[in-house]
């Protein structure tokens, strides 16, 4: 059942020489390959996605835990350069930043999940999630890579609600990657701020 779930991680295994051989393709060929791949990716419809057995997730680290978010929700990733705190906002809103002239709120999902901040983290990567009606920036300590996961490798989250985060988890892989439910986070009214004096 669980066949080679860590496949994408394994390319690191081949010897360096082998790798360089693998990449010893002429530039034009590379370009052509990339073009073909791009075309293939471009035509892939939503339905296609439903049919496939794998999902792409962006893997990131936050407070020494590894999380994954389905890549189709991730619009962009930036190093966080500027952060302006905004007074009178809930603690999970760390501030705002400007991306190409657009103001993006930056949130700390750890605080949003009411997880105790037991360790010092550097939180310097900004991941912009794209929802239907809004963009939300969440912070990560390290953003690892995009990896392909077999759907069968994502197990249901353990039963029993331990904390608020539990409600926003889609599943967990056998190597303890916590897959977050981006849609639930993006559509959650609790992440919105709408307060009067």
């Amino acid at each position, binding site marked *: 059942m669980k066949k080679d779930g860590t496949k994408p991680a394994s390319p690191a295994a081949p010897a360096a020489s082998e790798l360089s051989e693998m990449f010893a393709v002429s530039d034009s060929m590379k370009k052509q390959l990339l073009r073909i791949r791009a075309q293939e990716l471009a035509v892939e419809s939503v339905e296609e996605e439903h049919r496939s057995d794998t999902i792409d997730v962006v893997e990131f680290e936050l407070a020494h835990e590894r999380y994954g978010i389905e890549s189709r929700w991730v619009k962009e990733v930036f190093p966080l350069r500027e952060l302006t705190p905004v007074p*009178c906002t809930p603690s999970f809103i760390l501030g*705002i930043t400007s991306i190409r002239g657009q103001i993006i*709120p930056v949130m700390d999902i750890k605080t949003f999940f009411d997880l105790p901040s037991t360790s010092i983290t550097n939180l310097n990567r900004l991941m912009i999630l794209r929802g239907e009606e809004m963009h939300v920036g969440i912070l990560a300590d390290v953003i690892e890579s995009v990896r392909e996961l077999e759907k069968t490798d994502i197990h249901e989250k353990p039963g029993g609600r331990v904390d608020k985060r539990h409600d926003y988890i889609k599943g967990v892989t056998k190597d303890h990657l916590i897959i977050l439910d981006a849609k639930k986070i993006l559509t959650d009214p609790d992440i*919105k*701020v709408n307060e009067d*004096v």
Partner: protein
Amino acid sequence: MNQHDDGFLEELRAMFKIEAEEHIKSITSGLLQLEKIDNAAKMGQVFDVIFRDAHSLKGASRAVNLIDVETLCQSLESVFALIRRRESVPSADVFDILHRTVDAVEILVEGGTLKDFDGIHAQLQSLESALESEKGEDTSGKKKSVKKEAKKESGKPGKKKQEKKAAPDAGAEDKAKKPMQKSAYSEPQAGPAEDDMPADELEAPKVEFADTIRLPVSRLDSILLQAEDMLSAKLAADQYVTDLKNITRIIDEWHRTLEKGQMKTGVRIAASDLDEKTSAVVQDSQDQLKNLDKVISDMTKSAELNARQLSGMVNNLLKDMKQILMLPFSTLLKVMPKIVRDLSRDQGKEVQLITKGSTVEVDRRILEEMKDPFIHLFRNCIDHGLEKPDEREKLGKPRSGTLSVIVSQKSGDKIHIEVHDDGRGIIADNIKRVAVDRGIITAAAADDMSDEEAVDLIFQSDFSTSPIITDISGRGIGMAIVREKVEKLGGSLSVSTTPGKGTSFNMVLPVTVATFRGILVKASDHVFVIPTHLVERTMRIKPEEIKTVENRTTILIGGKPLPLVRLSDTLELKASEDAEQGEFLQIMVVNANNERIAFLIDEVQKEQEVLVKGLGKQLQRVRNIAGATVLGNGKVVPILNAADLVKSAGTITIQSGKRIGAQEAKVEKKSILIAEDSITSRTLIKNILTSAGYRVKATVDGMDAYTALKEEAFDLVVSDVEMPRMSGFELTAKIRSDEKYAELPVILVTGLETKEDRERGIDAGANAYIVKRGFDQSNLLEVIQRLI
């Protein structure tokens, strides 16, 4: 290949949607027009238009495979043709069916699912057959030919229509000619045409120049966003000039040092102290420095030139870009006739909507922002302003009320909009009574108030809502939102009313989302921008000038005492350590909604041009913050909401935060008095409040609490209801009966959760009522924060 087809179909559908929306809008406004026309002859013209729309929509929907839309449009088309031939005014029921069908088509076009397609279709079909059979009686019953003829007619509606018109109604002909004459002799879009309301409504000229292109709005928006971003480049260029000038100053100073041997530290070195080699080094440095000076001064000049050019270019680009995004006001008003119709039918009222000046052009973003406020305003006029037909008749008014919207250009960058209803008006005394009942103002204040001031109270956010904050109820809505929106856009909203005659809302709006002048201020190491026009003055004061009056710090400005609060306290920021140490304190006087408050700040940095940006959908509304802007150096800075600040400042007393002026670092906490007889509840509440940073005194019942209240001042009372000796209701009533405590917020936390109990709480004058079942500490804290 297949995917290619799919993509094509998708594109086609997107195009179809745009086209369909236009047809739907046209049919809706046509129907609304028809409802007002009582002259069958005039109807033909309108029917021709909407018949064509239905016909085109039918064809278009067939092309994209939307069979349901096609079916409905087919029926609509036939019905329109049949009514057109009948030449009599259809009943309101017929219009209802037609409107419902159009609504259904709209839902289908938007990609929604229709619950009752069959029902709507059946209704339309029975209308169709009824009309058809009627027709059959009139003529010799050639159904097929009737249909065909109708279609044929639609092909060349222009000619036929005019031939028909001329005969039955000479007056109609006159009217039809008038606009033509106008366009022949006067400037296009000349004013007079607007005086005639139907003309304005009928107008909507479909300008179809060959050199117009259709672009998705999103693409334009992104270009605008980038153009606006150029503003930071412009500001940055200015910044470079300043920086370069600073460098020149430093070099000058250095130059002097080398020349005179006078160092910054005060040490003086005479030329004779130097040996030959050192002198040579000094000489060489001086020469180098001269070169450097020359290079930098050249650079400064070109930087200045560059900054000037960039500024001109960016300003022009922005101006043109804004021009592109301008739309006539009618874009906003187009949806209104339908809304007014639906609202008035729901209320059993008759309303005639008149619009004037809808060709005035305004920034699309402003129109978008104003849509909801306008609906709000209209709803308000129909709900509260206009009377029911019978009542109007008794008052000697025409049965149907008139709601008018008059848009006019006030100046190059401002428009004026008047929304007027000829209803019952607003009675100042009623407003006063409600305001006093709800604790918004005191009875004494109400007596002092002029009628205008009283009417203005409808814009208070607490006015339209329930007076009590329960754990479920929402917050202030209504007219407050409208005013806030208008002010956020840089406009203003006022109301004037004549009891019995009607009410006018007068709105001034900027034509574009403008940049404004803003002052950069610093508080607790954070930089904020506040719009210059809301800052009356900035000044430095001596700590001795601060006086404490009735538990609040004040300062005399222009002979009048003004409340003085820290900006950092108002924004719930930690006060910075080293501020307020010097001989002088920096303050700014903010004036919003005619209320003036002096804020203590760390420093005033500078004044500059500022472009407001929204905080994004996630931060829909943040207390005290109106938006953000990007400075020349790329830093994002929050823009303060002056109206909020003034309101928030009103809740800060001397107890909160450290005493201003008295340079002791003692932090005074807000104090809360608890009245609760159960020891577990008492301890629980006390712990929650203490750990939230409040100073807490717990008492065992109402009597005990009241005694404590006499002895020391509290900011808020949290009380149980059922207690021995004096209940929570009695305690609240007693507090409210004493004028000294009129403003003291009272929260009732109770096991009693019936509606009657709640109402008793309201009657006694409690500010909030929290039910113990499902008690949640964050809820309590939130309510407390809202109150103090």
